[in-house]
């Protein structure tokens, strides 16, 4: 158990957890996303009602969360691909922090435009 704790007391364990949780959340969101889009054909009025509801500030914050999750999984995934397929770099912690920073930036830009 002590060994487990030592391996988790590291910023890159947090990077692993963030990648796993963001991936899980995105995978669970996908069926909802697809179903709402499919309403465009059969129930355009219901989709419009949904889009109007999506104007609420709380929903826009939730959308920021989704854009952040997609971005952080994307940039974190790029780090993993580089780690596996490119020459080794010592700067893994910097790259992981860069991934989180870029995801916050993209989420922030999205939120500002949506507001």
């Amino acid at each position, binding site marked *: 158990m002590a060994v487990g704790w030592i391996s988790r007391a590291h910023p890159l364990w947090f990077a692993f957890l963030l990648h*796993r949780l963001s*991936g*899980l959340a*995105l*995978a669970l969101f*996908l*069926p909802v*996303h*697809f*179903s709402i*889009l*499919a309403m*465009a*054909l059969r129930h*355009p009025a219901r*989709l*419009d009602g949904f*889009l109007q509801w*999506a*104007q609420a500030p709380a929903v826009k914050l939730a*959308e920021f969360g989704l*854009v952040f999750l*997609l*971005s952080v999984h*994307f940039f974190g*995934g*790029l780090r993993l*691909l580089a780690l*596996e*397929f490119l020459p080794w770099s010592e700067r893994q912690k910097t790259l992981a922090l860069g991934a989180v920073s870029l995801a916050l930036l*993209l989420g922030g*830009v*999205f939120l500002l*435009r*949506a507001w």
Partner: protein
Amino acid sequence: MLDVRLYLAQRLSAMLMVPLVLGHLVVMTYAIRGGLTTAQILARTRGSVFFMLFYGLFALAVSVHAAIGLRVILHETARVTGVWLTAFTVVAGIGLLLLGEHAVLVVTWP
């Protein structure tokens, strides 16, 4: 609980999605300005071969990627193995693929 084929499928679908996710982030951030209506979305997407191919490919890649990712989580956290793990992966992958391609066709069919 990944063999070489599943590992490669996971990495190849990830690489394929690099330009697709970037494009999706740009489209979303561009389109959200001033809110969205069903008519606005359909005006942009209906009859667009580009959107049909772009999102058709995206839905395929993400179905493969998400099904394999969920499989890894299910195995590592719930210790599911064998035929149940295979069945879950296939059902998740095909289910996402059908829902995804249906949604793409709904918004891009002329």
